């Protein structure tokens, strides 16, 4: 198992380096960030001064080498825009994004599994058809469009929930979280739902497909032949089987939740790292983009490991070593 984890980490280190290189050189081709930063009144000498100060006058290979050597010491460089360590900027905004993504994940499970179960158990009922139609809509509607509609309806028209921002936070172990305060929770609902919508649809579909398939299995009929009640059959026999694909997919989708938070955070002015990324892209803040991607790759490696472990817990037929080898 430790060999398996070690191998995973090695692979991801390689990916991180490759990723850093691609983005590093790619961003170099795109544009000169200095054009974005300079204030209009600066003359040519001032501009060159900035270029030198940011180290952008040196050959790109030299810049990359400098980046790699300091990255090995845990320093991913300073943001051009903020003048702060890029990693620090990201870590500072990470809790907000992770919180949003976790709540969205939770919503996906809480809404998705029961609805999917229902649709799977009674595939021909009108309610199930409505659920499935809804899930296709949820699948098809662009996130940004849904986001602004949510604001329109729940914040502007009904005035039930705040439109933007994160609201009040409290520190838990030094990490600010908003779900523990009423105000924070109110701020969380809309963006989290916006982010979750796609995943709710996904979970509904997965659960429904899984349920339909599991319900056809002989072991369900056998369980009925044992005289088990419907509750026990659905709650234990069906659930435990469909949880395997659902957990696996959701785990992997957690990454995409974080990625799609770019859109949601922009619309809801949620102070997370997705918003930081899109702003950094717009401003060519290379160190932040590179650091973000390395962070994401690292995060995904961790998520994948967690999913693998969960998977082996849920499905007795799988043992960890088997998959890594």
């Amino acid at each position: 198992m430790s060999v398996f984890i070690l191998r995973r980490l090695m692979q991801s280190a390689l990916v991180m380096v490759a990723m850093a290189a691609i983005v590093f050189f790619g961003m170099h081709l795109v544009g000169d960030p200095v054009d974005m930063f300079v204030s209009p009144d600066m003359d040519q000498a001032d501009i060159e001064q900035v270029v030198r100060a940011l180290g952008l006058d040196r050959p790109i290979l030299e810049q990359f080498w400098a980046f790699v050597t300091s990255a090995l010491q845990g320093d991913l460089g300073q943001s051009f825009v903020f003048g702060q360590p890029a990693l620090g900027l990201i870590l500072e905004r990470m809790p907000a994004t992770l919180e949003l993504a976790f709540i969205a994940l939770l919503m996906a499970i809480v809404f998705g599994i029961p609805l999917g179960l229902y649709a799977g158990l009674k595939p021909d009922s009108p309610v199930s058809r409505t659920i499935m139609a809804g899930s296709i809509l949820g699948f098809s509607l662009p996130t940004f469009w849904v986001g602004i509609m949510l604001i329109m309806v729940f914040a502007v028209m009904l005035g039930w929930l705040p439109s933007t921002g994160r609201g009040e936070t409290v520190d838990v172990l030094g990490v600010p979280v908003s779900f523990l305060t009423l105000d924070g929770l109110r701020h969380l609902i809309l963006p989290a739902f916006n982010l979750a919508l796609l995943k709710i649809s996904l979970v509904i579909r997965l659960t429904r497909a899984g349920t339909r398939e599991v319900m056809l299995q002989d072991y369900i009929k056998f369980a009925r032949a044992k005289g088990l009640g419907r509750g026990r059959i659905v709650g234990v026999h069906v659930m435990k089987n469909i949880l395997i694909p659902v957990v696996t997919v959701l785990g992997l989708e957690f990454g995409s939740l974080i990625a799609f938070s770019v859109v949601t955070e922009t619309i809801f002015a949620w102070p997370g790292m997705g918003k930081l990324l899109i702003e950094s892209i717009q401003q060519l803040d290379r160190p932040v983009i590179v650091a973000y991607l390395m962070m994401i790759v690292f995060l995904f490696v961790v998520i994948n490991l967690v999913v693998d472990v969960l998977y082996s817990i849920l499905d007795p037929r799988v043992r960890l070593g088997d998959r890594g080898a």
Partner: protein
Amino acid sequence: MTTPNTQPGATPPGGAALAAAMPAVPPVESPLRRFLTDFSASWLALLAALMLAVIILIALFAPWISPQDPYDLAVVSIFDARLPPGSTSMEGTTFWLGTDGAGRDLLSAIFYGLRISLSVGVMSGILAIIVGMSVGLAAAYAGGRTETLIMRVVDLQLSLPAVLIALILLAILGKGVDKIIIALVIAQWAYYARTVRASALVERRREYVEAAACLGLGHARIVFRHILPNCVAPLIVVGTVQTAHAIALEATLSFLGVGLPLTEPSLGLLISNGFEYMLSGKYWIAVFPGVALLLTIVSINIVGDQLRDVLNPRLQK
């Protein structure tokens, strides 16, 4: 005469038992016919397929059926900007769905936008299928280290969300239809590679493939005549879903400002432009392209759903 137990709609929860209880009937229909019968079992799917056909026709014939060429700046005038549906231009043409912020006839813009969105979706889909299929087949057929290596790359690619990959790529590549297709292909090929490999692995282990190998048939022949045809069904299913996904992705990227150039808007760009007008009361600028995009994606998804149900052998017992 149709066999009751092959109707997906009629497959009951107790289908396994029923199937066992039912006598086997000789297949009297051609696979295509059965496919069509199965597919049209759901009126919703049929409706969606019909809708999709109409959408594709519109996209194909946009230049001939649009009232205006929305890309011709000699015709489009900002003087006509933001006119409500049914208004008349200074030259006397009627804007049935109104005009957008640049004075384009929305109906024409939507027709042309469909053309771009669909071709972006389909082109990127086809290219991604070609890339993914080659890689997936190579992996499945080569086996061993090559396979492990390829599939690791695929796994890694899959673990990175498509939207993120496309976002970064477009930031590097810049705007344009070609760029976005490249970005979408790079973001999506891995799905196909995985699908093809999975099906190909199953097929490769079948006796007939072994038999073909024993007969001394060439690699190419085995791959193309025996393995590939069996990967087609799952590919079609993944392909429809991914095409819808690509169209939505393009819309999102346009919203984030890294999609297509402004003057030749796709549906996604029309919506993201309309996004500005969401609160302004000029509903038509946001709503009509939105409806068009929604109809497109929803019909593709419904068709894809039905295809999956029909082509999925596991639900077909």
